[in-house]
């Protein structure tokens, strides 16, 4: 019996000793971390990435672009862009992010310098600045203020001083090339490798083509698109293949085809039924159209409001089949939104945000189901841009 007790006692002592030693045996000391690490992005953008551009409206210093991963509900990186905010431009190969920046010599005063920033698409480090005429429009940012030619060679920048012009930057040679004067016309809508459209204050379209060296520039003024300023086209059209789809204040789509030398304007069609118009359903917000190219779907941000509510946020996104011009779905958003965008993959996501709240909402663009929100995305986010995937 005593022997048994001794064995028991010995076992208990051994167990206690092992328990005391266990943390020391199993928990190795942490090694020093490597210093000065900076992460990089994957080689290619993911379709569920989205750039969120923030105007920092409490001061307008600085404009920022946040890169968010919608699947991981996480932030991947950001770019800081100087005073105000212009959209970024994303070449299709994902190799770079082009920014349009304004800088004052002394923060809010002194000499003004406008530059195109070329940031590496993987490291997000600045590779080069190209100084351009300090004339870029300073305004609430719209995607139509800057654009890349279809072959990604030329960056086209809308200037307003209030004289109107386009600055052309050769992104292959990485140098400013020429300023094209375009009196009476604004915005810049790339429509080919060496072609862009502008909208003029008399509601006509300006069709501009240019040669590689910018020595030859032709401008053709088309007929008026709309007759009354009471139903003007907004500055927020979307490109769908060879067509630009403009939307009017009262939610009519005006398709403009650029597939041939002469632009053609198709019949306008309404996003709303007579009943919906009677119920005051209108398009609104700062970025109110989005296209899913492969599915041929148009997404439009809607709200109910009066005739002057064209910038009001929306609480629904209506989805249309562009070919049949029919509404196929109504998506009730989790939160009201002033900007929408859609990813370009087989399982598209609908991104939305309201510039007052720094929250990015994500819905399934097919089912309309709410997926998740990502909080703390800047302070006053305004624009949503997805990678170009080719």
């Amino acid at each position: 019996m005593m022997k048994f007790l001794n064995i028991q006692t010995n076992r208990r002592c051994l167990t206690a000793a092992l328990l005391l030693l266990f943390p020391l045996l199993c928990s190795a000391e942490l090694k020093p971390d490597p210093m000065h690490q900076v992460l990089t992005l994957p080689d290619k953008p993911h379709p569920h990435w989205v750039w969120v551009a923030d105007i920092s409206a409490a001061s307008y210093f600085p404009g920022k672009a946040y890169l968010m991963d919608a699947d991981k509900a996480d932030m991947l990186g950001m770019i800081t862009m100087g005073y105000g905010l212009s959209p970024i431009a994303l070449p299709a190969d994902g190799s770079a992010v082009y920014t349009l920046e304004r800088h004052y010599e002394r923060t809010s005063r002194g000499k003004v310098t406008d530059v195109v920033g070329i940031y590496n698409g993987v490291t997000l480090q600045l590779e080069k600045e190209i100084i351009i005429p300090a004339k870029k429009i300073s305004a609430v940012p719209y995607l139509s203020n800057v654009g890349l030619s279809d072959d990604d060679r030329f960056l086209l920048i809308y200037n307003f001083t209030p004289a109107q012009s386009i600055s052309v930057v050769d992104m292959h040679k990485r140098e400013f090339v020429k300023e094209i004067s375009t009196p009476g016309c604004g915005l810049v809508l790339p429509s080919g490798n060496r072609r862009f459209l502008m909208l003029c204050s008399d509601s006509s379209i300006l069709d501009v083509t240019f040669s590689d060296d910018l020595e030859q520039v032709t401008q053709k003024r088309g007929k008026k698109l709309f007759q009354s300023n009471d139903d003007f086209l907004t500055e927020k059209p979307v490109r769908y293949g060879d067509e630009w789809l403009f939307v009017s204040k009262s939610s009519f789509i005006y398709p403009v085809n650029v597939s041939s030398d002469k632009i053609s304007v198709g019949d306008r069609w309404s996003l709303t039924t007579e009943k919906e118009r009677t119920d005051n359903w209108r398009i609104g917000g700062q970025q109110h159209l989005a296209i899913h190219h492969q599915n041929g779907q148009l997404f439009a941000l809607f709200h109910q409001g009066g005739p002057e509510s064209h910038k009001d946020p929306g609480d629904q996104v209506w989805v249309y089949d562009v070919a049949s011009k029919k509404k196929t779905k109504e998506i009730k958003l989790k939160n009201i939104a002033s900007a929408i965008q859609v990813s370009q993959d087989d399982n598209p996501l609908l991104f939305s945000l309201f510039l007052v709240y720094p929250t990015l909402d994500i819905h399934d663009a097919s089912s309309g189901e709410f997926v998740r929100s990502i909080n703390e995305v800047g302070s006053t986010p305004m624009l949503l841009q997805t990678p170009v995937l080719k």
Partner: protein
Amino acid sequence: MNKKNILDKWIEGYSRRIANVTSRRSFITRLGTVMVGMAGIPLLPVARAAGGDKPMDADPGDPKSCDYWRYCAIDGYLCSCCGGSVTACPPGTQTSSITWIGTCRNPADNKDYIISYNDCCGSAACARCFCHSNQGDTPTYMPFRSNDINWCLGEAYNCSTAVILGVATS
């Protein structure tokens, strides 16, 4: 001003809807009327206290409030809340040389007035009393009635005033 208050003001600005909606007439007609009648900048037929924002009977409302009738087409921070007034820029800023205009109805005399929204420039945004109304607002490619443009152009934006240019007559 803390972030919460700024956001509150933005929300407030968005929620404003001016009740005295004017009839829509030709902008050119109105602008022409104003330019012809602008031998001097017309003032409301009532004296205003020097440098004061206190509303008079003929000019009712609070210039620190987005509801004030002159703000029917404004988009920005109200200079009345930023050390300036409804007609003057705050100390330390400069006035923009060109502006955008709106047409607002004065509830006191039920007349439409052409309002010049002169931006004040050369400083970071004031970030007080944000106000966003879009009556008669046009897209940026129709610039002179567009409130989306920073009319400080090459300079930084601080706040916006609302100066009466004259009565709009058809």
